[in-house]
């Protein structure tokens, strides 16, 4: 698919010596939702800042829409929107004026219909004349999204869009992001909520210590690194595993009263294995009273990857 953003050897060393980005190479495809995951201080916000003009890279190149950001930054920036992590906006301004200002700042002619469309899509139309300071936290965040969408960007950065918002609002935010994607906006989102990436993202990138540890299709990553875990409660304890069962990745637990399976590929093989395993148990005359089965989440994969990095 056509690349919309290309980072090549991007590094940033702050004046204090902190290396926030370390030789980052990343390509974002047109129309996708890309989730950038990483612990605090991993370099997510620095990466966004480098693309959006708030951070001066120490080395490397950034190309957006085919433009070199160091030279044709005006053309590139005109097509990029940013929703920052912090609720940073002029709190004394009414919503409508704040959003209209953002459109003008990006060099576009006033367009009341477009602003109305944006505000309505974010359920802010009724609040258009309210001062931003009078709105709830969730609404303020939506105002920031409206400001970022006012100039009709093709690439939108959402830096922790649901940080500090309740579950209901978070799901509302996911719906909004989904609508933006359906309009053809490419979205790069950073988040602490892995569930969010699992729900929304087409591809996932994991960053740690300024380095991109892994980038892959979410489904492929889960298929490759995902696991199935099943706990089979046995009717009678076993002292050892019969050879026909031992060919599965299993082990006895709870003094032989339970058999634990850990395996599969996150794409269905584990479930098939567990089904075959239960048949094999019955064929060996081993009865069971219950099965507890779960697939590993993106969060499990994320935690395990970061754990491996730390151990490595």
């Amino acid at each position, binding site marked *: 698919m056509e690349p919309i953003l290309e980072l090549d050897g991007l590094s940033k060393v*702050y004046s204090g010596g902190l290396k926030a980005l370390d030789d980052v190479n990343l390509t974002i495809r047109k129309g996708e939702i890309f989730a950038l995951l990483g612990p605090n201080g991993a370099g997510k916000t*620095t990466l966004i*800042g480098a693309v*959006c*003009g*708030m*951070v*001066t890279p120490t080395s490397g190149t950034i190309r957006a829409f085919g433009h070199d950001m160091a030279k044709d*930054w*005006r*053309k590139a*920036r*005109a097509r*990029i929107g*940013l929703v*920052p992590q*912090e609720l*940073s*906006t*002029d709190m*004394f*301004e009414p919503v409508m*004026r704040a959003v209209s*200002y*953002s*459109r*003008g*700042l*990006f*060099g*576009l*002619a006033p367009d009341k219909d477009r602003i109305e469309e944006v505000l309505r899509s974010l359920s802010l139309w009724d609040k258009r004349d309210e001062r931003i300071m009078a709105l709830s936290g969730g609404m303020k965040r939506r105002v920031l999204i409206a*400001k970022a969408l006012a100039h009709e960007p093709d690439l939108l950065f959402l830096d922790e869009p649901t940080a500090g918002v309740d579950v209901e609002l978070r799901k509302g935010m996911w719906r909004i992001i989904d609508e933006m994607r359906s309009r053809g906006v490419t979205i790069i989102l950073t988040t602490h909520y892995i569930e969010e990436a699992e729900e929304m993202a087409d591809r996932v990138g994991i960053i740690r210590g300024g380095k991109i540890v892994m980038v892959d299709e979410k489904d492929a990553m889960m298929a490759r690194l995902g696991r199935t875990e099943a706990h089979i409660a046995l009717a009678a304890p076993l002292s050892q595993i019969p050879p026909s069962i031992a060919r599965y990745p299993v082990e006895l637990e709870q003094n032989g009263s339970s058999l634990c399976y850990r395996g599969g590929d996150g794409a269905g093989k584990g479930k098939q294995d567990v089904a075959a395993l239960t048949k094999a148990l019955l064929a060996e005359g081993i009865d069971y009273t219950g099965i507890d089965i779960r697939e590993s989440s993106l969060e499990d994969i994320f935690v395990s990857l970061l754990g491996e990095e730390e151990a490595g």
Partner: protein
Amino acid sequence: MIGWRSTWAIYTRELMRFLRTAFQSVLAPVITTALYFIVFGAAIGSEMPDLDGVDYGAFIIPGLLMLTLLGETTNNSSFGIYMPRFTGTIYELLSAPVGVAETLIGFVGAAATKSLILAAIILLTARLFVDYTIVHPVLAVLFIILVAASFSLFGFILGIWADNFEKLGIIPLLFLTPLTFLGGTFYSIDMLPKPWDTVALANPIVYLVSGLRWTFYGQSDVNIWVSFGITVGFLVVCVTIVTLIFKTGWRLRA
């Protein structure tokens, strides 16, 4: 190429910010000017002889105008850029396709416009106390615009340099206001004993007050072209510094 729509967006937003506090912005200079005229114009001024053939009450108008103009323009402009840095809203400006030209024309243009509005208010207030005629009205407006633009840029630099509110206030408080008071606001530097009349020429504000006084009454402490030259030179220095700040991202970009 300058993005005029972006420039207009910055300019109108800054003016809106000014209008939000219009009552304070307008009333403060009116009251301050009125107080100066009551004290220096009516009370003390009535005992003073004419200076350079100009009634003392009228003589102090250009100086008072400069006093308010320098303070308000510097403060407006420095706050205009410091507050977005302080609150984090600067992200929007930095991530937009706007460069030094749009930012400067927008911010400095708005600060200069506010100053012109204030100058008009001060002159109207002065009219309530003193009768005066401006000899070179067009040059007076031009000179005010030049000074307003220069000190808007100066305030802009101050707002970028300052990393706390104390620094933001210290330059106007410790340097600008004293230099303006000592710059011939209430007297002609010819009245100073030697060698202070010569020492006073080291104060750059002397040239501003003197220049504006010349446009009002055709009389000045120093040659009008020296005043214009120094003001234009100051403007060029400020533009150069601001351009460098934007090019390097000093205190703007991480």
